């Protein structure tokens, strides 16, 4: 069991609120870890600190054995961390293809001269990227593969979530962070999306997933292991059935004293 991501004594404050309070959390390679807890327990903050959007006020993060505390979002992306967002953050006026290519940024040639003057070479790169994106989309949603150059704005929520996941996957991450993928979707759509996520795991070698989710059905179905947060601290850890039966967890969720 290789540790992929390790947070130790990770702390983040917002004014007087301690969003992460000396959190110790370990993610093991190739697992699907569920991160659960009541609203405001620090789940999204944990993602934001790990991906470099927020700075940690204390503690360390290591990824793949290297210390990445305080690394920029760009550096975390290069290191192999991809994420989706709780409130869908696609670029709505842009096409499906454009949105997926944003995730492919580190593999695209970015020089000004190349992009403006070497149109032939750019075209080759474009075609290769298009085929790769199309292949990825076809694996999950063949109907979408013929609509790659339509703007995202007109698509239903489930397709937008899928595109967010494609955008994260095309980066070929070692660690995928999914922040409430079921938010804003019906039960049926959520079930479909979870099938996709399980399929992702089957088709991709060396992919570790951390998923934040409020739908306990989802957590039970897809995760190997769960970590429960409350007030920025870890209060339980283990397989879903075990943590669901935990008295502290039930108290945190139901407010039973």
């Amino acid at each position: 069991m290789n540790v992929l991501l390790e947070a130790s004594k990770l702390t983040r404050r917002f004014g007087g609120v301690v969003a992460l309070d000396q959190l110790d959390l370990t993610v093991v390679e190739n697992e699907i870890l569920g991160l659960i807890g009541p609203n405001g327990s620090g789940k999204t903050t944990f993602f934001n600190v790990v991906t470099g959007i927020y700075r940690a006020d204390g503690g360390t993060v290591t990824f793949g054995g290297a210390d990445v505390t305080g690394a920029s979002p760009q550096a975390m992306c290069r290191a192999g961390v991809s994420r989706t967002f709780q409130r869908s953050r696609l670029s709505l006026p842009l096409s499906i293809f454009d949105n997926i290519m944003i995730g492919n940024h580190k593999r695209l040639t970015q020089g000004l001269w190349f992009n403006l003057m070497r149109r032939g070479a750019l075209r080759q790169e474009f075609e290769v990227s298009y085929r790769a994106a199309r292949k990825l989309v076809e694996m999950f949603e063949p109907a979408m593969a013929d609509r790659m150059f339509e703007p995202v704005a007109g698509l239903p929520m489930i397709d937008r979530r899928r595109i967010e996941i494609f955008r994260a996957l095309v980066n070929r991450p070692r660690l995928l962070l999914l922040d409430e993928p079921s938010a804003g979707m019906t039960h049926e759509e959520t079930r479909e999306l979870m099938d996709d996520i399980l399929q992702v795991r089957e088709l991709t070698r060396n992919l570790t997933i951390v998923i934040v989710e409020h739908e306990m059905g989802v957590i039970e179905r897809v995760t190997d292991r769960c970590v429960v947060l409350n007030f920025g601290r870890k209060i339980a850890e283990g397989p879903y059935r075990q943590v669901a039966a935990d008295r502290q967890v039930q108290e945190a969720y139901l407010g039973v004293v």
Partner: protein
Amino acid sequence: MSGSEAPGGTWQKPRASLAPGAAALVFATIYLIALLAAERQSIIIGLLGLAIVVVLGANWLGWLVPVSRSFADREDALAALAVVGAVAIAAFFRDNHFSLLLVVTVLLYTVATLGLNVQFGYAGVLNFAGASFFGIGAYTSAVLNAHTAVPHILVLLIGGMLAALVGSLLLLPVLRTRGHYAAVVTIAFALLFKTFLEVNDVLGGPQGMPVKGMTILGWPFNDNVIIGRLDLSFYINYFAVSLVLLVGSFILVRRLERSWIGLNLDALRLDETAAACFGLDIARWKITAFLFGNFLIGIAGALYGMVGGFVAPNNYTFADSLILVSILLLGGIGNPWGVVIATIVVVVLPEKLQTIQEYRFLLYAVMVIAVLLFRPQGLLPRPVRRYFPRWRP
């Protein structure tokens, strides 16, 4: 586009016909010649009314759909035809100083607004000092042409580079602030720039200074061109260079949009945080867009300085910057074709309608408010990016 058709449906279709776009360009050319040639106010007002009726009518009859489709699929050929149209207009007014100067002004304002389009339309950096950077180009011409023997083509490039260089002074505050706050930084710069010119005696102070006309390879631009029995206005020289500059800028801006860099700029404008999470270096791309835009604005300004033959602080005020921004809003943010159309409207209209010339700012305000109310994306909204228009999946 018919209701049943998906927005991206044109992609699966064969290439659209050239004819509708070509017809529209021919009409536009004839119309512009008529408008520029008209002297009587009643005829001009009639022509303007006619344009509004024709455009609204064509829209109502659905005739604009095939036009936009043929522009989308045959852009290269139609752009070449548009150049021919511009040449036809210049040829028609070959001995008319006033009309040619107006055409040259349209061409150079278009180049400058294309620069703003890269900054605001793509990268989302609002520049309210466009006229100041235009002025930096113009003053560069004035100083270099007066005191040095630098070839005038190089002077244009230096004007562009100086506008970019001075613009880089603004980078730090612009990168540190976001949205409206960055815009306020550029407003402050516009005000500072004008004051700087006014108190600076070397640059002529409030009276400004003359600019020597352009000379390329010994060809004096400020002499009328006499070929056999033809006597052409000297502005035809400037027209030729301006047209080349516009074509070059248009191609560059188009290529920029249709590349990974165009995608980067869109991504960071729409969501900086998400863009950063996928590895985009936000500062690098904002700087690239800002300097690229300023470079175009500066080159246009340098040439316009030589065209006008005189520079003064009052030509490069905050109000002039607002005109450039209003062209962008009017035309359709992010759409170079929209910029071309809007520049024609904003530059030509007040010059021809003498009656409203004093109220030109009122007119701009009304136009911008009307566009924002009824067509917030501008006259020609920007379509979804097509990296290689001829490419089919």
